[in-house]
């Protein structure tokens, strides 16, 4: 188990910086996700840690030791690629043995460790097959096994589930998380899928435009995002412009258009424009004339276990998600009940 620290990583290609000072520390055995849209620098960060990209400035520490100038083969990492990158000319067992051979592990030990890892990734019956003869999910597990069998200091995963279909992706998500916990290896996972990041991680790092927007537990990122962009990236969010409010000591008193008033926590950092975030499932429907806000149902989408409503209010159209047994017809007038404890002030995006 290894502690990984990134100290103000900067990476630029020619002029434009791809990473603009990434600082992050990952504890022993933690599962950290780098989450963001494509081009945000999450993959570049991973490739810098792996050594495939040279950092322009800043340092990368494994257990306090600076490895930022080391060659990739000297860094002791296990990496899983989006394309799996299996060796097509080697069998599954030979793919797993490759890293051990590079480490000059004695033959008998290689056989034993490969067998143990094949068991771990549930591929024992496929040991003698070539990658071409395996399904996507099986290839994925070979890639995982190949990275883990060398018992690396850290495990790096670059969008490993992006090429799988939805059902297999859900299965593999659980599989990877269980495996990571069992092995206890420090893991950095790159994804653009907020669902993957939140369900699997101890720590989610949201990145935009080469910089970290927010790092926190999945709950923190989801419930208390620092900006509107983070709030929207990790889930559906209603962002309401903050009406006239009296900044109190640590709280804001809020008066809604209908006259109802609420007290919500004040933001930690001052921002030019503030908004209030309410997640769709944190708003409840009630009878017309009741609750904090009045509105009219403009759309109802049945989702099985839940219903998605769109409700036109004086605040604009709000998304509301309710349990499937809360029924309101399209066109019906309803009341909206906000939970002051779950409302959260966010800095609005400059462009919004």
């Amino acid at each position, binding site marked *: 188990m290894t502690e990984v620290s990134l100290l103000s990583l900067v990476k630029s290609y020619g002029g434009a910086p791809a990473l603009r000072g990434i600082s992050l520390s990952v504890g022993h055995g933690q599962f950290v996700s780098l989450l963001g849209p494509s081009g945000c620098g999450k993959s570049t960060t991973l490739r810098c840690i*792996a*050594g*495939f990209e040279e950092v322009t400035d800043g340092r990368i520490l494994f257990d306090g030791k600076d490895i930022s100038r080391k*060659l*990739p*083969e000297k*860094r002791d*990492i*296990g*990496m899983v*690629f*989006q*394309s799996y*990158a*299996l*060796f*097509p*000319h*080697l069998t599954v067992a030979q793919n797993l043995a*490759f*890293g051990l051979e*590079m*480490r000059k592990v004695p033959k008998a030990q290689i056989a034993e460790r490969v067998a143990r890892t094949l068991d771990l990734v549930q591929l024992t019956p496929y040991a003698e097959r*070539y*990658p*071409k003869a395996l399904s996507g999910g099986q290839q994925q597990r070979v*890639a995982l096994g*190949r*990275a883990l069998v*060398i018992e690396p200091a850290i495990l*790096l995963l670059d969008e490993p589930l992006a090429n799988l279909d939805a059902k297999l992706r859900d299965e593999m998500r659980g599989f990877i998380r269980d495996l990571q916990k069992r092995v206890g290896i420090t893991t950095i996972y790159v994804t653009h899928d907020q669902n993957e990041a939140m369900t699997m991680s101890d720590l989610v790092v949201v990145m935009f435009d080469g910089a970290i927007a927010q790092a926190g537990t999945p709950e923190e990122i989801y419930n208390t995002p620092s900006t509107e962009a983070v709030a929207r990236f990790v889930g559906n969010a209603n962002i309401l412009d903050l009406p006239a409010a009296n900044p109190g000591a640590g709280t804001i008193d809020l008066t809604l258009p209908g006259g109802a008033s609420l007290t919500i926590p004040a933001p930690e950092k001052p921002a030019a424009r503030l908004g209030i975030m309410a997640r769709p499932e944190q708003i409840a429907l009630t009878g017309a004339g009741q609750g904090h806000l009045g509105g009219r149902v403009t759309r109802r989408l049945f989702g099985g276990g839940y219903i998605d409503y769109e409700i036109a209010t004086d605040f604009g159209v709000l998304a509301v998600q309710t349990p499937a047994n809360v029924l309101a017809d399209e066109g019906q007038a309803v009341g909206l009940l906000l939970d002051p404890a779950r409302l959260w002030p966010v800095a609005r995006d400059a462009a919004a």
Partner: protein
Amino acid sequence: MSRRRPLLLIAPAAALIFFFVMLPYINVLVMSLRMPGSEGKPFDPGFGFEAYAQFFTQDYYLSALPHTLWLGIITTAVCLLLGYPLALHIATASRRWRGILYGIVLSPLLVGIVIRSYGWTILLGNTGVINKTLKDLGIIVRPLKLMYNDFGVVLALAHVFLPFMVLPLLSSLQGIDPAIGQAARSLGASRLTVFRRVTFPVSMPGVQSGCILVFVLAISSYVTPALIGGMRVKTTTILVVDALIDQFLWPFGSAMAFVLALSAGLIVIAFAMLTRMKWK
């Protein structure tokens, strides 16, 4: 109808191959089994193994066969050694450079083989560019023997057939996921080990087809060995043309051509089996 359609679709190609490849082959085989002619006739009535017996008992002709195959193997090896680094470089070059380099590799094919071979005689001849320059510089007194020997023939053949090695190699190398090399490095392999253990073995299909192509073309080439070798380098192909066209020995020339084709086929099969890829 739908079942018969594929057959219908391959019919033109099949007919072409039958009439212009299979029939001539059969014709050569049949001719090689006819009796060698007498009194100026190309062949006499009746069938037998006379022509083969003549070939296998005359050292002048028989010794050319291993020599021809050997020249083919050396030419193939030279093409592989020159072509692999070139293909690797083109495969990893930027998109713009790749186009330019690709064009340069293909450019020799735009010039006819006679002209290309003749070009080498200007360079390699006793009073050619190389010898004249070295002499003028006082580095040599007597001209180096650069042509009319195996060296010149292999050099010219390698030049003529290099594109046929580079193109299959290139398509094979370009098909390799670059992440494979990175995966190998993350597992502890140095750049050199990545090449030895991953890149080269994975590019084997390209090596295989490039080698077979160049070998077959080299042993059956006539113009280049004739011009550069100046009839002093004896290859089976040159002897076959000589027997058929100049000496009018049809069964004998056919027998020689058939033995050459058979030996080349056996070498190609042996090579393909040695480099067989179970993973394909």
